[in-house]
């Protein structure tokens, strides 16, 4: 007689039972009531044994974020420098970056699918586009806040417009620019968990492969947040390096 055990699981469920007709050599133990089989909140042993599953996706995720943020930063910075000089550019660029930001990432990936197919590009393009608005806006504000005295001093020293921009204005605008860069970086790390939908991999891939397994979800969540904090720290350190005369401002 089969004796039921806790929560309706039959005694034979917990013990080793293999499919009828399975050759003996193939029959393994399957613990349906253990932490892993029973989907406990966090299975430390499993996490330790299987941590290497996340290494590849982790670095892939990092790659996706790095490319997206660097590309977005370069484009947004260039646009902001241009717009600072030619104010007429501001409304259209703000509008365009705003529109890009409004398109939900999932939709954006699949809109690009016919054009760029499955892969890295389909993930990187939308992720870069998302960083544009915040970096562009922040850079504009930063440049606008540069004290006129500093510019006068530079001009007085005989600097050209370009030199003025790169040696005086941008460094002084650095805090705002970096603030925007930090927000963009952290957001990109989180959104990139969806990159697997575009076929680009990243931490979303192992998440999706076992999307009901709590331990898996928690590991991916922790790794993503850790990566975001780590990159944020790097950017903050970079700022202190670039602008040693300023103290790092809180978020």
């Amino acid at each position: 007689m089969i004796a039921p055990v806790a929560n309706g699981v039959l005694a034979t469920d917990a013990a080793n039972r293999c499919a009828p007709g399975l050759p003996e050599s193939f029959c393994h133990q399957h613990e349906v009531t253990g932490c892993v089989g029973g989907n406990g909140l966090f299975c430390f042993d499993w996490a330790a044994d299987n941590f290497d599953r996340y290494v590849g996706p982790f670095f892939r995720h990092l790659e996706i974020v790095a490319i997206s943020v660097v590309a977005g930063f370069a484009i947004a910075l260039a646009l902001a420098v241009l717009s600072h000089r030619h104010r007429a550019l501001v409304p259209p660029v703000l509008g365009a970056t705003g529109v890009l930001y409004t398109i939900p990432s999932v939709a954006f990936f699949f809109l690009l699918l016919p054009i760029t197919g499955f892969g890295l590009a389909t993930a990187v393009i939308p992720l870069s586009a998302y960083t544009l608005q915040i970096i562009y806006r922040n850079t504009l504000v930063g440049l606008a806040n540069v004290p006129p005295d500093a510019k006068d001093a530079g001009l007085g020293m005989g600097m050209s417009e370009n030199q003025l921009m790169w040696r005086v204005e941008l460094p002084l605008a650095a805090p705002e620019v970096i603030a925007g860069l930090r927000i963009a970086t952290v957001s990109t790390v989180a959104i990139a968990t969806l990159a697997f939908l575009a076929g680009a991999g990243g931490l979303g891939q192992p998440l999706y492969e076992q999307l009901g397994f709590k331990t898996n979800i928690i590991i991916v969540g922790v790794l993503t947040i850790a990566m975001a904090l780590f990159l944020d720290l790097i950017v903050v350190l970079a700022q202190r390096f670039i602008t040693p005369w300023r103290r790092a401002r809180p978020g």
Partner: protein
Amino acid sequence: MILLANVFDSFVGAFDFILHSREAVTGGAQVGGPAYIWPFARTQLEVSAVALGGALAVALPIGLVLGHLGKGEYFAVGFGNAGRAVPEIAVVFLFAALAGIGLVNVAIALGILGLPPILTNTFVAMRQVDRTAVDAAEGVGMRPWEVILRVELPLAAPTIMAGIRTAAINIFATATIASFVGLSTLGDLITGRNVYGDDGVVAGAIVIALLAAAIEVALAGVQWLVTPRGVKLQRATRSA
């Protein structure tokens, strides 16, 4: 050139999917057309609205009170920053794994995503309210809740609305993947390439983008409406 033609084709096909009904790729069922697509869109809008409402109910009061008191800046601003780092689908899946699937659970998971922008923006907006207005109000004997509701809130409203807009778009965007956990949202179209074809997938993406834009515009309109006339004038007279 061929690439452009292919792309054009895909989008033409997608719009055809949105506008006209057609047979599923695997045969035997009719898919496509506005009547078919609307229920998916409606579910996504519904769960987003519920989630946003919940997030507002929780985050707005906290932000108002903390902002009025000037306390807890580290928490309020830090919460906003930390919230940006949280991967949305992990939250949705974790909730589903813990509490099961369905509208309420997904709405709660999505609502959590809406908390940071609303809380942070509300707090910051309240802190940025002109202190002279607050002093004047306290000077005429208004009680704290009156000050909050009748003086600070209207002045803080535009920035608060900006936070609500961010939250709304985030929630709506993430609601797409609710298809994995029991809700029939537009994500069904996007993940259903086998039955909807490439046309259906791109159609889903287009509809999501258009609805997100509509929400953004609508909430921007609300933001404009709640901006006190004085503040609008003030903004207009400042240089860009």
